[in-house]
């Protein structure tokens, strides 16, 4: 971290100057933009049936993670994230720039890594057959776990791998806590830059949705979408989320820093706000979203919203009620196109907002219910919403730089 003790009196303007997307729709901005415009969804209803997931589009990992040894040290979720982080650095034009990377801050929103399912199942089966001697579990774990698997599971080792592979070392912070982690990563990074505590930051997250161990966690409360894919707004009779697979990273920096190095912005990150509704009574999510909306800043009429609405209940219905209060905004649910990428969903929304603004168009609706409507004019303001499936509400304002 570059130590910048003195706080500025006026908050610094913050620009989004890098976007890295490696998702179920493809790698890079073109592939994702084309898929969004073609309303192409990459969904797998069979491999994990009855659960629906969005599989990652395989890429040539060597392009962003050149050393095979590094690739082997990671599980899929880390490879996806490290890959997408590299794309974001490329996009910002700072890849390999040791001077900048050495003082670039990093906040990663992360869950945990893949378990070794074979090891788990072997232990459970042996136990079921009466192997319950003291120390049985110890012996199996000592003998069967790969020594470095732990490092591929540790939440902060996504950031660790990004530091190793790409050299981002100004700071390394990992936020956990499902959807809210992604909101807070953006919120804190923005606040630090705005206050002069930092000049430039890499933020984002990644998830591999093709994971039975992850499905188990959400199945405990029947959150997984079953049987058949449907757009997020069309899941009222079959609620749930389809786990998505994506890495989504952004480079954000102060306007002054970007201008000094001649960087072109995609958009401005104007504000990020968050709260935690207790959700004990119906309507609390709706009310919290309304409160956050009022804190975003001045919103023009007929803007756009990109939401990470999950499709799971009650949160999605409560968010629908909130959206109903703002009917002149064109809404897009990223969960329809990408699935639910949990910690990554909010950074993904920020990426899509910045991309849409830079392309001068909002991608088309994909929603048979009619909640999502066409937007003909170029968006100048996009509100990104993230209401967690269980906890956490967040919102950001992304704006065109006029």
């Amino acid at each position, binding site marked *: 971290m570059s130590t910048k003790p003195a706080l500025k009196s006026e908050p610094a303007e913050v620009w989004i100057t890098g976007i890295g997307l490696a998702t179920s729709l493809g790698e890079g901005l073109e592939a994702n933009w084309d898929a969004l415009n073609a309303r192409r969804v990459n969904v797998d209803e069979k491999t994990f049936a009855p659960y629906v997931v969005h599989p990652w589009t395989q890429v040539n990992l060597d392009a962003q993670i050149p050393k095979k040894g590094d690739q082997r040290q990671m599980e899929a979720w880390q490879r996806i994230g490290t890959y997408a982080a590299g794309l974001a650095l490329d996009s910002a034009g700072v890849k390999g720039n040791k001077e900048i990377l050495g003082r670039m801050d990093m906040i990663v929103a992360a869950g*945990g890594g893949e378990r070794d399912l074979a090891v788990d199942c072997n232990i459970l*089966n042996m136990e079921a057959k009466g192997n319950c001697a003291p120390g049985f*579990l110890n012996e199996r774990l000592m003998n069967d776990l790969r020594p470095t698997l732990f490092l591929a599971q540790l939440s*902060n080792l996504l950031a660790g791998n990004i530091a190793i592979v790409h050299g981002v070392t100004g700071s390394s912070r990992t936020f956990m*806590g499902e959807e809210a982690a992604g909101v807070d990563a953006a919120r804190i990074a923005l606040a630090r830059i705005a206050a002069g505590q930092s000049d430039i930051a890499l933020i984002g997250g990644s998830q591999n949705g093709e994971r039975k161990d992850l499905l188990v966690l959400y199945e405990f409360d029947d959150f997984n979408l079953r049987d058949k894919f449907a757009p997020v707004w069309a899941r009222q009779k079959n609620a749930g989320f389809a786990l998505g697979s994506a890495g989504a990273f952004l480079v954000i920096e102060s306007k002054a820093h970007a201008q000094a190095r001649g960087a072109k912005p995609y958009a401005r990150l104007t504000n990020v706000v*968050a709260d935690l509704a207790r959700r004990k009574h119906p309507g609390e999510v709706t009310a919290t979203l309304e409160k956050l909306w009022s804190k975003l800043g001045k919103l023009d009429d007929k803007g756009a919203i990109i939401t990470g609405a999950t499709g799971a209940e009650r949160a999605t219905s409560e968010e629908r009620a909130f959206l109903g209060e703002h009917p002149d905004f064109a809404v897009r649910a990223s969960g329809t196109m990408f699935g639910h990428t949990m910690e990554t969903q909010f950074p993904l929304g920020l990426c899509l907002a910045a991309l849409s603004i830079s392309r001068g168009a909002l991608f088309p609706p994909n929603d048979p219910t009619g909640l999502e409507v066409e937007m003909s004019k170029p968006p100048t303001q996009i509100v990104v919403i993230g209401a967690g499936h269980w906890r956490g509400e967040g919102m950001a304002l992304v704006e065109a730089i006029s």
Partner: protein
Amino acid sequence: MTATRDKFGRPIVVVTGMGVVTSLGAGKTDNWKKLTAGESGIRTITRFPTDGLKTTMAGTVDFVPVEPFSSTDLSERLADIATEEAIAQSAIGSKGDFPGPLFLAVAPVEVEWPQRLELGRAIGDTVDYDGMLRVSGGGRFTQYHRRFLFGSVADHLAETFGTKGSPISLSTACASGASAIQLGVEAIRRGEADAALCVATDGSVNPEALVRFSLLSALSTHNDPPQAAVRPFSKNRDGFVMAEGAGALVLESYEAATARGARILGIIAGCGELADSFHRTRSSPDGKPIIGCVRNALSDAGIVADQIDYINAHGTGTPENDKMEYLGISTVFGERTSQVPVSSNKSMVGHTLSAAGAVEAVFSLLTLEHQRIPPTINYDIPDPAIPFDAVPNTARDARVTAVMSNSFGFGGQNAVLILTREPV
């Protein structure tokens, strides 16, 4: 009137409440008494069978019952205990209504073996993950969704203590506790909050966690006697010892604290961080990231190394850490290195992992308060390559005005805090 801003014009951040729980006991009084008496909290593990394990001891907190056991449940209980103590001391807000945000350092959460075995038994057939998925839904295990979300401990603390806004759960591995404090300091300096609750907790001693560190050859195997296992800076040190605990600090702006007449326990004068890109578990051999991190902390505090009169070391007792920590400190402190007392709380409480940075910040502040430096115990065979004044085996009275507390972790995590009695 005393200035409420530091030399950089930022609000001064003070500590008005502290809580701690470790294997030595619950609360500051008990911990401080034992810490300065050179007592060890490391003991032979009784929580689960240790047959087949190379390491059979840990700094477990066995006096907080959690049944059925899960590390996440224990982490939550420990965080509760430390936070209650901190808020009671600070007397801030009102019960269940803390007037600021929560920053929580917590170990990554996952479904654990007792629960996984329960799922396996529910299948009653050949067990595979498809079978587990079949029995997981339908409401039978709903509580495990709540329990094993990464945000679950923060969610609980936010509700119990009434913190404001979106609580942040963070992991920077073994630097997490320091990072939680740093986030609180930054929020107050930005003027976003007048107060912040910074908590760090870890209840990780379970079979798989122990095996994981054991497979990385990170743990001491000096099992007998367990009290002698952690040997920071000693020639015969052979690894760290896993331990449990929690630390909690109420941070406030100096202005807000003095306005409500709160007793000020110390100042968080500076925070530094710098990541290491060398290796997943090892520090860069040139020590540059650690050196840079220490310099960042000093510079953030606006002081120089000469002003530090005690270093609360990361001091895990692994061959690698202690060597690198010496390299880092000696590079920055130069000829003065051997004159600055450097001790490791971990020699007594073990390595409380995600909690360590906050637990040791509390101990650093108690060092300032009592003007007494806790020792490094089990220091019988000094490592000649690490010629620290390690405060060997016996606590020492000393004039201490500024403490540096170090935290380093897997994944290239480095964080350093500067704590003082008075504003600098």
